[in-house]
């Protein structure tokens, strides 16, 4: 642990270096290049920076009332330390920022600073406060503990025991706290009695399923629409939007295979019906997909998925039109086809247009087969040798337990560790439990131990700056697989050879080729890009009637699928900023106004310039998560770009900011941008908005759910909807007109983006916030990756082979 002062001195020393330097310095320098503001002040970070950037301001505006002689508000500034890593000190400085930001200080009767002066001071102090917070969060003692996120817990018990445990079920686990989207930051994943209780209950559940008293048997059932109708002709089940039929039952949690023969008719607007399995008890769908099959050519859909216990509706989850209690009342008689079974009830909802096309996406089901729980041999193999074959064989039990604990704790175990559990077995047997039950109790205790749900790095008695091979194996596997190491990694850790570059490289190649890498390509972009915020503010149904849950899911799938494509093709990081392709499904194509793909699953499609997409920044997920459900938020978009693309969090907004008022009815309609530009003329706002807003205005051609537009719909006000102005100028003077030019500006400086990306990747991999101490190594990884034009796999490989990855 280095003190903040040391860090600052390091910065001063490393600043002139051309090849070394720190991430922090480079980041700010690049930022300064972007904004070209206060370059000198930013360059002079640290204590000297304080003397240059803050002290003159304080002397002019603050010290007269907050000095040795006079402490207005009992606040003294002249002796306030400048070590922001100390929480108490940082809080005092945060108070200063708060008062300055809010306009409370300097008092109105005193001379007022220029907005630029005030903004520079607030920016400098805010940056130091953030760095101090990062340093505190990254503090590590002799032993570091990183609790598994609930997502990792689920993957780990599956890889350990072949048991699917839905960590998202109500009551299973609490949602993990996030830091800028990352939910695996060790310092945030604390432990409470509630966690312990849930870990215990989860362990009991998992082990009961892994080693049940009675082995489950797989059942196969079939439900047919024609069955029992007593009719000659084929009868079918019509499923209108929002309607489903209870056709699937999962007798216990597990893997199920469901086959459904159906027709799927798109709406007259071309929208495909969305088939889903809807869980009665959870009141939500578990799995869903778009389907397209003509009425006279039904298809068979096969879904193999893990299901929680319960009853399921096969459901048409297209946007529900029948939510107000009315039923479609297609016909009094069983449904046969859309021609003969039309309603002649004039008060029923209208289902077909004059051309005979279905107004709504329609599913017509013939039969459903359910098979499960399927017990794959691969899952059963995981459990082999973890439980003694013979009851009352303590020796065998010790061997089995040794293997189980070694796997579960991801390290060798001592006899002392084992003895505790052997004693537990003995005491349970003595209390009258069966041997199997007693052994299982010991296994529950193993999984309820902190050694299971915490990743531990370090030694209590030995100061180590790097991880050992066992810790390296876990670091690798939780980075790439979000789960425990497999046998091969264990073996190499056991041999003590995993850390060797050639071994590590070989393992990396193997791990990247393993299907479990999908967990990384799914989870990392969600955390890096903060996709958990998509739908956090559900769009107003009256403003966005086309928005639905499937669109929301499709938005996220586009982004994670895009990341997966870049990964699988090993494309350059530049593709995240600009590209002529994206990942598309029919729902998204409809949302974007693009031709419907021929197949209904997510697939790569080429884009034309006039379609205004390409790269991550103009994907609907990103544009939605930076909106608030009623309108787009240029400032939020700017902040998001700053964080995700540049790895920099702008200072927080001042308190009590007046919200933008709706356009008065007697005034011309004004865009959000027009209102913001008026807002940003205030002294306390202008300095920050000058930096943030240009990053958000570039996307003004996209509304709150990411649809392209050329004019902005403004509630209230008079006149026509004002045209969008998506032009702007960065602080370095470069100007753009529209998102495409803006993205090109970003792509001109891939180095900056790559460095920020490496920092985000390292945060995910190392489960901690990056600090000034890490900047040199981050820079080194970036430089090493530059030779390979920042190909994604190269960046990952360079991170894993770097000193940073070994750094404890």
């Amino acid at each position: 642990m280095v003190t903040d002062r040391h860090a600052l001195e390091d910065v001063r020393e490393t600043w002139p270096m051309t090849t070394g330097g720190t991430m922090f310095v480079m980041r700010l320098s690049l930022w300064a290049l972007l904004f070209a503001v206060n370059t000198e002040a930013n360059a002079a970070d640290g204590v000297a920076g304080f003397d240059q950037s803050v002290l003159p301001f304080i002397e002019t505006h603050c010290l007269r009332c907050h000095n040795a002689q006079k402490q207005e508000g009992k606040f003294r500034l002249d002796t306030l330390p400048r070590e922001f890593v100390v929480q108490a000190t940082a809080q005092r400085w945060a108070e200063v920022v708060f008062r300055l930001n809010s306009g409370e200080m300097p008092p109105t009767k005193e001379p007022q600073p220029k907005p630029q002066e005030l903004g520079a001071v607030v920016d400098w102090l805010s940056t130091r406060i953030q760095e101090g917070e990062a340093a505190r969060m990254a503090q590590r003692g002799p032993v570091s503990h990183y609790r598994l996120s609930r997502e990792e817990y689920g993957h780990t018990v599956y890889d350990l025991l072949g048991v699917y445990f839905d960590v998202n079920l109500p009551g299973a686990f609490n949602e993990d706290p996030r830091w800028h989207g990352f939910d695996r930051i060790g310092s945030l994943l604390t432990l409470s009695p509630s966690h312990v209780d849930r870990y215990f209950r989860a362990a009991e559940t998992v082990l009961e399923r892994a080693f049940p008293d009675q082995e489950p048997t797989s059942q196969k059932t079939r439900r047919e629409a024609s069955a029992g109708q007593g009719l000659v002709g084929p009868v079918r089940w019509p499923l209108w939007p929002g309607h489903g039929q209870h056709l699937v039952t999962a007798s216990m949690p597990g893997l199920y295979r469901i086959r459904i023969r159906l027709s799927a008719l798109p709406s007259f607007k071309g929208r495909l019906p969305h088939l889903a399995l809807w869980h009665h008890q959870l009141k939500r769908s578990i799995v869903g997909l778009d389907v397209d099959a003509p009425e006279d050519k039904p298809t068979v859909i096969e879904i193999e998925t893990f299901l929680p216990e319960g009853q399921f509706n096969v459901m048409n989850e297209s946007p529900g039109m029948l939510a107000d209690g009315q039923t479609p009342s297609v016909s009094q008689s069983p449904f046969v086809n859309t021609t003969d079974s039309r309603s002649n009830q004039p008060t029923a909802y209208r289902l077909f247009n004059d051309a005979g096309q279905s107004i709504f996406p329609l599913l017509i089901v013939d039969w459903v087969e359910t098979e499960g729980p399927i017990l794959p041999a691969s899952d059963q193999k995981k459990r082999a040798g973890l439980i003694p074959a013979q009851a009352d064989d303590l020796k065998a039990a010790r061997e089995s337990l040794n293997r189980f604990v070694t796997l579960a704790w991801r390290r060798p175990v001592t006899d002392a560790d084992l003895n505790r559990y052997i004693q537990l077995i003995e005491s349970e047997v003595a209390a009258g439990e069966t041997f199997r039950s007693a052994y299982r109790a010991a296994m529950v205790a193993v999984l309820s131990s902190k050694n299971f749900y915490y990743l531990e790095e370090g030694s209590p008695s030995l100061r180590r700056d790097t991880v050992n091979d066992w810790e390296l194996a876990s670091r690798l596997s939780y980075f790439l697989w979000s789960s425990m190491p497999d046998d091969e990694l264990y073996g190499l850790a056991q041999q003590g050879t995993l850390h060797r570059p050639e071994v590590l490289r070989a393992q990396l190649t193997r791990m990247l080729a393993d299907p479990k890498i999908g967990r990384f390509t799914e989870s990392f972009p969600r955390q890096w890009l903060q996709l958990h915020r998509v739908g956090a503010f559900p769009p107003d149904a009256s403003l966005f009637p086309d928005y639905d849950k499937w669109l929301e899911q499709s938005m996220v799938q586009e982004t994670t699928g895009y990341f997966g494509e870049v990964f699988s093709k090993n494309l350059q990081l530049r593709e995240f900023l600009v590209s002529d392709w994206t990942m598309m499904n029919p729902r998204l194509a409809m949302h974007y106004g693009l031709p419907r793909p021929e197949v209904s699953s997510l697939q790569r499609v080429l884009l034309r310039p006039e379609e205004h997409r390409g790269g991550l920044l103009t994907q609907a997920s990103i544009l939605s998560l930076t909106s608030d459900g009623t309108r787009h938020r240029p400032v939020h978009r700017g902040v998001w770009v700053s964080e995700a693309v540049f790895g920099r969090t702008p200072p927080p907004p001042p308190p009590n900011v007046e919200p933008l008022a709706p356009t008065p009815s007697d005034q011309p309609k004004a865009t959000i941008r027009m209102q913001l530009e008026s807002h940003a003329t205030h002294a306390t706002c202008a300095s920050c908005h000058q930096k943030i807003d240009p990053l958000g205005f570039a996307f003004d051609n996209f509304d709150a759910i990411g649809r392209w537009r050329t004019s902005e719909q403004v509630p209230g006000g008079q006149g026509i909807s004002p045209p969008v102005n998506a032009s702007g100028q960065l602080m370095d003077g470069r100007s753009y007109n529209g998102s495409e030019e803006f993205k090109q500006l970003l792509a001109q400086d891939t180095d900056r983006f790559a460095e920020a990306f490496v920092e985000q990747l390292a945060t995910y991999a190392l489960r901690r916030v990056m600090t000034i101490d890490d900047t040199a190594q981050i820079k080194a990884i970036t430089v090493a990756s530059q030779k390979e034009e920042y190909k994604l796999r190269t960046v990952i490989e360079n991170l894993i082979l770097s000193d940073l990855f070994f750094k404890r």
Partner: protein
Amino acid sequence: MHEVNRDHTVSRRRILQSLGMVVALPLLNDASPSLAAETDVVPKPGTFPALGTGVSLAGELVSVDHVNRRGAIRLVGDNDDSRYHSAPSHRFAMLPYGTVRYHGAPAELRDVPIGTLLHGTFLLPAEGITAYPPIEKNQSKYVPAQNQALTLEDDFSFYERQGQSWKITAVDISKGTLNVSSLGQPSSAGLTGDCVFEIDRSTRVWNGRAFGELKDLAPDQSMQLNLTWAPEWKNGMFHVADVWIDPESRDVAREVQRQVHIRHMRTRWLPGWVDHVEHQPGGGGIVSVTLFSGMDQTLYDAARAEAKPGGGASMAAAEWTLRTWWQEHDSRNGPVLDFKDSPNPPPGSSGLQLRVQFSRLLEGYRAGRIIRFRPNSFPNVKLPPEARINSLDER
């Protein structure tokens, strides 16, 4: 008393012909081809008939199924003993856009007493619509095929609308005769010139805001009257049921009926049909409707007034009979986007077209289908059970 008009044989034939039989008689006696061209009009759903189509028939209302807007009239006599002896009454159904007027104001069949002489325009049964009354294979030669009523009016409405009234030329209470002569614009069909009608103490004399007496009838009075059956019906003789002998009495009758009509329509809603449906994603759409004619202007104004921010209307699916199902429950409500008034609309059309935005469409919202339109200012009430349709078989 029925013998009093034997002196008027010449005028009687003219009377019979003018009472609609000018058209009906040729029909009954092989209509000429040129006439058939304009009388053999078959109405089509979604299309109003052209001006001047249909046949004019007159007769006494003898039965009414007011819920289904159906009834029967006994056509006026034509000196044919056999016809009077054996002809069945002429059963008719109101076209959905068919109008009834009574006492000079819009009305429903239920407002018209049995026994009232009515003047109407009739078309052939519409194709595609369940024909009522059914055309029988051995249809009586005395029953015209035109049984779809486009208009029905009592004498008051019929003559007043055409600018014709009556002047008393002589009254003989002891003999029970009322001699009249037409005034003003002669009606295009119906009685004109000099006529003699029966009166007796059953005749209601309306004077000012009160009942009068037969002795209030005096030569040179200008009046309107409603006729009914008399024993010499087959020879074109009528009895006077009501007579309004001054303008105030006519105003009172007209206004009372207008209010009856307004009250009725505010709860039954304004009939019209769907011109066009513009489908939107998600099951919504914009429905254009044209309201039928024959209603009080204040009701159309109420519909127009909803075309404003915050305004709206409900629309219930209705049948050819104008009956609805469970209108306040099954209808949909939405904002009225705009309206348009077309000048010189065809018969049956008000010329008022409105566009309504709905988030959900009903099966009954199809071009050519009948609807009932409720401006939001009208009450949203449940109709009595016999007025509602409860199953498809009831239509």
